[in-house]
């Protein structure tokens, strides 16, 4: 109960500071604003004083969100090309593994947070469609040699039974990202792939999602949670929007266990990746931030603790590529 009151208070402060920002930007200033301004300034000052890390730099929390936004605004057009170049295509295998572990059934609702260019959502829709096709093929094969019993029942009952069921359970994927440029790239990809139904694009902050409670069957966040300023808030939001029985899945860069591999990985990260960023995307600093932010993210066990603290159960993780990437999963009960 204390937690929900805290959350409510936080939301009120955030809403009030948002009205202040909107009034400062020159829109209609109501007479009540000055009092709000003085009341809430003390709350927002606290946030500005606390510091956090931006890669290896120390910045204020307010500044971090803004700088992360600028990084992704700048890398958005070349994001997919760079992913392929930096991981030599292996990121596709990681994302495929996420879907394989998720094993979604047709009809479930996915929330892909920090989904940006939509990689996870596209894979999700593909997976679900291929599942549906498999089921349809199986039923078609079964219908080819029906027994006398089946023929007689099909005469008496309506035949659209199976199709109606799958239509009613249409799977949906919602891609949520704080950055409009990344969503724009994702939308263009969707258009070029010809995907029109089952996908929606929403601008939103992982620390404060624009969705009601208990909405989604699966919540995924792939390579996004390390850019969030307050990871615990993002985890709490995940718990809030998941249905009871829903699954939280997080794909993120983590600590490599093998020391030799760790040295190679570090050398590759710090020498090669910013160079690739400069040559392919013309942006050294964003990719320097990327490799530094990976080092600042907590390791597998610590992150597992954080997920358990947020209120998820049966939390486990799989190490992929020797610990370069870890897939954490937990359930809301």
């Amino acid at each position, binding site marked *: 109960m204390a937690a929900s009151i805290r959350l409510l208070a936080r939301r009120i402060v955030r809403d009030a500071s948002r009205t202040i920002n909107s009034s400062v930007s020159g829109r209609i200033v109501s007479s009540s604003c000055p009092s709000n301004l003085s009341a809430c300034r003390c709350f927002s000052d606290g946030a500005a004083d606390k510091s956090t890390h931006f890669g290896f730099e120390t910045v204020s929390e307010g500044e971090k969100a803004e*700088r992360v936004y*600028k*990084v992704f*605004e*700048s890398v*958005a*057009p070349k994001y997919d090309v760079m992913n392929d170049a930096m991981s030599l295509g292996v990121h596709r295998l990681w994302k495929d593994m996420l879907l394989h572990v998720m094993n979604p059934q047709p009809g479930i609702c996915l929330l892909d947070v920090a989904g940006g260019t939509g990689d996870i959502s596209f894979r999700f829709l593909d997976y679900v469609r291929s599942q549906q096709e498999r089921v349809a093929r199986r039923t078609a094969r079964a219908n080819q040699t029906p027994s006398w019993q089946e023929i007689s029942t099909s005469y008496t009952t309506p035949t659209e039974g199976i199709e109606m069921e799958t239509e009613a359970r249409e799977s949906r994927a919602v891609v949520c990202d704080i950055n409009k*440029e990344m969503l724009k790239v994702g939308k263009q990809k969707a258009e070029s792939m010809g995907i029109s139904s089952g996908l929606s694009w929403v601008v939103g902050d992982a620390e404060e999602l624009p969705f009601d409670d208990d909405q989604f069957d699966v919540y995924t966040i792939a390579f996004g949670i390390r850019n969030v300023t307050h990871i615990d808030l993002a985890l709490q939001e995940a718990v809030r929007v998941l249905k009871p029985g829903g699954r939280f899945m997080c794909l993120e860069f983590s600590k490599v266990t093998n020391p030799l591999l760790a040295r190679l990985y570090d050398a590759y990260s710090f*020498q*090669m990746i*910013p*160079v*690739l960023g*400069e*040559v*392919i995307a*013309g*942006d*050294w*600093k*964003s990719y320097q*931030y990327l490799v530094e932010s990976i080092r600042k993210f907590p390791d597998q066990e610590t992150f597992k603790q954080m997920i358990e603290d947020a209120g998820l159960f049966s939390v486990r993780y799989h190490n992929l590529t020797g610990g370069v990437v870890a897939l954490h999963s937990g359930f809301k009960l």
Partner: protein
Amino acid sequence: MCQPAHNIEMLRSLLFSSRRSTGRGAFMFEALCVRQQHHGVDHADGQYDGLYPGHIPTSPIQKALLAVGSGVAALQDPYRHDMVAVLGETTGHLALMTLRDRMRGDPEGYTILTERPRIRLSTLDLSKMASLPDGSFGRVYLRFLEDNRVTPDSRVNVKFVDNEELAYVMQRYREVHDLLHTLLGMPTNMLGEVAVKWFEAAQTGLPMCILGAALGPLRLSTSRLEPLVTSLGPWAVRNGRQARCVFSIFYERRWEQSLEDLREELNIEPPPLTITATSQKPH
């Protein structure tokens, strides 16, 4: 109508360099290119790590990788001026040192190294330059900018040179490039650029110029190759060798000087051919 790559670079780098300049030009272009601002994460005003604003310290391995990568990228797409710039910075250490020493030896060059002038749209008094008599260096330069639709602000800032003075020399080299076009009477089409590159390679010995001079002709059609090989090329190389160091000239104080006078002073012959500036379309 496509914009030349020059203008796009101009818009980009103006955003970085215009923080300190307050001229009309800066306002005009900032309003136009908010969309272009995605290029690169900008540090807060006045803060930078490294030896100069925009400096990114790099290890030798990174420099080697950058040199190879930018070389490949520049060959694949010669309109990627940032890649040409990076190639120049990572490979040009020795040549920059020689150039810096040459500048130091010349009294005017020494003044440039101490005063560190920058050629930018905001620092040029365009109306005054337009009122100069025809045939004066400033007037011809202005006409060159208009005819070729370029601006002096299109140069990428130096990032990977690990010495503050050499970084300035590199920046000066980039900014003087357009003035060289004017001095040599070459437009900014492919043929003109190759001719200027040959001159620069002979003058500076920068590996990037030599590479550009060697590979540039490969992209020329045979009709253009012929004048290059027969008259323009030898003229450019000869003048590059015999001319005074063009980077030691304080151009900003010589707008009123007549172009012929300046050429004589620098020991540069006028061009053997006049090439007209054709509209260029980056493909």
